[in-house]
């Protein structure tokens, strides 16, 4: 068996192939490579560091248990991991019945002029975040990677296994879906208040 430092230098496909063959050290190298991204995705959903760590650990356990079912010619491994993480986050939020509160660390106070604006921005941020979490897998991943993680098109394309042109299309459709969702909510709010 190879030592850990050598494993870290192997390409993703080789590591995944070995992990599918139940090579724990290869899976460990994949864990090292992706644990931060998986954790951040879940933290964005649940807004709590301890819960995010718990769920991230569960995501890797589920991935290890299900890795024989991963199709190496399908979506990239990290994209598959993020889907597992997202499903765990959704189950967790459902079990809590109410959505997670937006963590204080996600709020940009730089552009606010007064406390009312801060509250308004927090509420709008929560609405947008919830709408993002309701997007289809592919759209949600692109939006989070592009605008939460602040990655460029090439990096996002690599993670989701699409071309840069395809990522731009998904980005546009996802933003359009978010815009329609926000407009729908606004019109429902107006109707409810009227």
């Amino acid at each position, binding site marked *: 068996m190879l030592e850990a430092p050598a494993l870290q230098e192997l390409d993703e496909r080789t590591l995944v192939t070995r992990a599918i063959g139940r090579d*724990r*050290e290869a*899976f*460990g190298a994949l*864990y*090292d490579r992706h*644990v*931060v991204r998986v*954790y*951040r995705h879940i*933290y*964005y959903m649940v807004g709590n*560091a301890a*819960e*995010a*760590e*718990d769920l*991230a*650990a*569960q995501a*890797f*356990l589920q991935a*290890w*248990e299900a890795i024989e079912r991963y199709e190496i010619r399908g979506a990239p491994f990290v994209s598959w991991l993020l889907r597992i993480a997202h499903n765990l986050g959704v189950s*967790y939020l459902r*079990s*809590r019945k109410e959505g997670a509160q*937006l963590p204080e*660390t*996600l*709020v*940009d106070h730089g552009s606010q002029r007064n406390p009312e604006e801060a509250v308004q921005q927090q509420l*709008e*941020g*929560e609405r*947008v*975040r919830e709408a*993002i979490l309701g997007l289809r897998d592919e759209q949600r991943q692109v*939006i989070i990677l592009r*605008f*939460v*993680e*602040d990655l460029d*098109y090439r990096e996002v394309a690599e993670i989701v296994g699409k071309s840069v042109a395809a990522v*731009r*299309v998904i*980005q*546009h459709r996802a*933003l*359009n879906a*978010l*815009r329609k969702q*926000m407009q729908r909510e606004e019109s429902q709010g107006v109707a409810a208040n009227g």
Partner: protein
Amino acid sequence: MAEAALIEALANCLDAQHQGEASLRACLERYPEFRVELEELLAIVRLIPRLPDQTAPSPAFRERTRRRLLGRPNGRPSPADLGWRTDSPS
């Protein structure tokens, strides 16, 4: 065809928004036919809450999970083995 042009305009104006107010204004002026739609989409992007760059799991968690996840030569660790709660979150 119109969608392809809008997709390109959106990508360009997102880059411009990143560079600042003046660049964004200049970009919007290049696409008067899409201006209303672009402004609405860019406004959505500005509302998306960001994670700070330094948001990451603790080193202790990373090490503990790695060790316990990979520690057993055979068999699969249970959630209890990994030190996770087995009760439902309240």
